[in-house]
């Protein structure tokens, strides 16, 4: 079973539907203690960084325990940003600090169209291309230049763990991966076939983590 962590602002329905379409069972734990039975954990998000405050110490401890146990964790959009140290969007809200760096407002970097020098619009909404930065299990089989759907105003910096980069005036982390922790800034659940492929890659990680006998129950 895949745990979809609800912190009150995410679009759980789309993520749930996409995971069901590729054969995964999901549930939304109501208390942190339920996470113990997860074979994989997803922190989705279409929302304000401030809403991640709902992920209290209790939730953080439970998630940390599972990740240390080898259970894969996937952050989507604000879920990716939460895995960094924090965000300009809500300076008072602490990130989970798996990845180093703070998320920045795309608007303050004054992104420009490289050809026309016209200012780019923020939020960054639509289909943009991925530049594969290094090999990762999450992005395995995804061609350089593949297009995926983004919708966000804040972005995470490019770091050593960045698996794919997107550029919107400035380069930012489109996908990051370290050990059992992966995250994407774009919405795989809204990125048609490429997105479902990436979710399948991640689901395979969770199948592996749950061991052969339990895999059928994922």
């Amino acid at each position, binding site marked *: 079973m895949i745990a979809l962590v609800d912190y009150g602002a995410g679009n759980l329905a789309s993520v749930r539907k996409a995971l069901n379409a590729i054969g995964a069972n999901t549930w939304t734990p109501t208390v942190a203690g339920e996470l113990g039975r997860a074979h994989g954990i997803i922190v989705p998000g279409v929302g304000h960084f401030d809403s991640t405050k709902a992920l209290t110490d209790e939730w953080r401890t439970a998630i940390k325990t599972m990740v240390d146990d080898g259970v894969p964790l996937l952050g989507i959009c604000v879920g990716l940003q939460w895995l960094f140290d924090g965000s300009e969007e809500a300076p008072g809200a602490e990130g989970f600090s798996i990845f180093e760096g703070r998320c920045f407002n795309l*608007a303050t970097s004054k992104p420009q169209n490289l050809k026309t020098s016209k200012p780019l619009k*923020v939020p960054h909404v639509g289909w943009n291309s991925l530049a594969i930065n290094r090999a990762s299990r999450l992005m395995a089989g995804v061609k350089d230049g593949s297009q995926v759907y983004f919708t966000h105003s804040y972005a995470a910096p490019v770091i050593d763990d960045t698996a794919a980069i997107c550029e919107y005036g400035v380069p930012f982390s489109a996908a990051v991966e370290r050990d059992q922790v992966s995250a994407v800034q774009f919405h795989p659940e809204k990125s048609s076939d490429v997105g479902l492929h990436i979710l399948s890659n991640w689901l395979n990680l969770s199948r592996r983590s749950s061991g052969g006998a339990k895999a059928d129950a994922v």
Partner: protein
Amino acid sequence: MLSKRIIACLDVRDGKVVKGVNFEGLRDAGDPAALARRYNVEGIDEVVILDVTATIESRQARAHTIAAVAAEIFLPLTVGGGIRTEEDAAAAIEAGADKVSLNTAALSDPNLITTLAKRYGSQAVIVAIDAKTGRAGLQSRPRYEVFARSGQSVANRDAVEWAREATDRGAGEILLTSIDRDGTKAGFDCEMTAAVSDAVNIPVIASGGAGTFQHFADVFTTGHADAALAASIFHFN
């Protein structure tokens, strides 16, 4: 590089897709889920459901349509029409919408834009503006008269000014529909689209008048649109 988006619009009434001309004379264009399924295969970038008679349709019926369409597509889904309160928006998002589109409600209660942007983020809040080109005054450009209630009542707002205010209040995108061009397949109103697009720093979706491939090319170049929405051209092909 960010691509220009092509968005298919499903105008829904009583659970059926309908389409009129200049916002009138609605005719049946089929089952929303079946059309959505086709769009998912045909490479459409996004889908919008506009509940054109939401005033009489219940929230539950709308949720049913949203869920049926959402089940067919793995693409961004926007829902508009009859989103009057924070609760309406929450119900649409819970049913599977990624974004909600506000029109009449934003005009009568502009605070709703900010409330929803704070709760769901600006990227989830589209302000839809239905406008007609008025006469050019002494100023260099004509006034773009905004209409509320599906084109039924004059809002006493200029589309450019209203788009600016909506942006300041937290809107993430503007969906700009030309009532003059709606359903005519005569081409987008590139002049009005460019005027609005140049005035705001958020994406503008042009709507009304799509008929040919060239119309899309025109609205992306001379209309400065970030995305273009069409209905008739997709339904009745």
